[in-house]
């Protein structure tokens, strides 16, 4: 009996130590290791997020507010955020008078007129729905009369003007008939020409949202800088632009 007691006394400390270590491993050790691993991942992720936010904040701070506003103003004139119906009509007549061409009929289908700029009618067909932030087109067809030179001049003015338009089709009848051709050969007169011009008036709704806070700030790349310089050199025939601070894209862009 005494021998057993003595042996137990010998192993008491190691047994206690073993039990303490075992319990501690399950209660403290393993959860601590798990938490540490999780924390390390969190720290890495948060550091990356902090770096992104720091970069973004410094980029935002470095942005010149007035320059940005003026650049946006130019871009908005070139590519309006709503269908530029009146701007196009007024600029077309000004361009026509500048080139000397006579504007005849035009065919414009701007689409549905909304009572509220921010809400599209539920009846709006899928084809008429416009994606925010995407280049959209509004077809317009115009008939012109004038000499060949002024029609060409009109097309040239059109290509150098804002709002931007994209010619799709030109049908030019130079006005030369066989009889006139003979006279033209003799007198070198420029016969009256007529043309039907079909083009797309370009616009794009503002992007629907500005993304996540940690999303990087888009930087204006060299190509965009060149584009900016190009649109600054365009002839502007309408400047009644006011920038809206809303960050929600309009599904139906009419505001009139």
């Amino acid at each position, binding site marked *: 009996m005494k021998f057993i007691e003595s042996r137990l006394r010998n192993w008491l400390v190691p047994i206690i130590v073993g039990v303490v270590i075992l319990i501690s491993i399950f209660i403290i050790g393993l959860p601590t290791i798990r938490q540490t691993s999780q924390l390390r991942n969190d720290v890495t992720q948060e550091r990356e997020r902090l770096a992104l936010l720091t970069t973004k904040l410094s980029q935002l701070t470095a942005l010149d507010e007035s320059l940005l506003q003026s650049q946006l103003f130019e871009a908005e004139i070139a590519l309006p955020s709503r269908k530029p119906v009146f701007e196009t009509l007024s600029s077309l007549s000004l361009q026509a008078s500048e080139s000397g061409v006579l504007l005849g009929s035009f065919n414009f289908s701007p689409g549905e007129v909304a009572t509220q700029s921010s809400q599209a009618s539920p009846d709006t067909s899928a084809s008429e729905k416009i994606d925010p932030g995407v280049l959209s087109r509004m077809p317009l067809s115009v008939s012109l009369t004038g000499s060949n030179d002024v029609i060409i001049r009109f097309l040239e003015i059109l290509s150098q003007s804002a709002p931007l338009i994209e010619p799709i089709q030109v049908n030019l009848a130079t006005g030369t008939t066989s009889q006139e051709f003979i006279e033209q050969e003799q007198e070198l007169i420029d016969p009256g020409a007529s043309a039907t011009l079909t083009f797309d008036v370009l616009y794009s709704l503002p992007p629907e949202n500005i993304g996540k806070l940690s999303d990087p*700030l888009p930087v204006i790349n060299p190509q965009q800088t060149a584009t900016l310089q190009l649109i600054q050199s365009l002839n502007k025939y309408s400047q009644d632009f006011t920038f809206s601070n809303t960050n929600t894209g309009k599904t139906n862009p009419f505001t009139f």
Partner: protein
Amino acid sequence: MASVVPNINLLQKTKRIFDKHARKRKRITSVSTIALVIYLAILLPIVGYRIFLSTTLNSIRRDIDQKTQGIQQQQAKEQRQILLSNKLTNISEALDNRILFHELLIEMFELFPENASLQSVDLNKADNKITVSGIVSSVFTMSELFQSFTQSLESNLYAQITITSLTKSSEGEYSVSAEITSNSN
């Protein structure tokens, strides 16, 4: 005279057993203590590292909150920059895909020689084709016109030119129609 006392131990065997047990107990205790120390030496740095990471994470999150507030204060600026970038991308796309029709029309007029006259031009971006028709006063001028077509093809101005019709009227004029496939895009 010095007396010699012999070292007599009557319980020598018992003492040896006792000593052996004591040494064994001591060794077991030492091993246990060392195991405990090693365990703590592993556990405590992990706990310390966890505390360090936790403090670091809190500090980073405080910085993130500060930066977030800073960005939110400049949200209008960010919105303008995003809008500008989007517009410039769309404008670049539009300008890249645009065909300068006035230049094409001038090219068409230049394609016809002096004694030939262009009657009509149809430019269509969708099918990349230009349809022209004109009047030519003589066979010699017609030959000049065809030469002009050939030269423009040789200089890679156009991909293909197809003469779709060639007629002669009672007045002696020649009418010619051609379909030109553009090289662009």
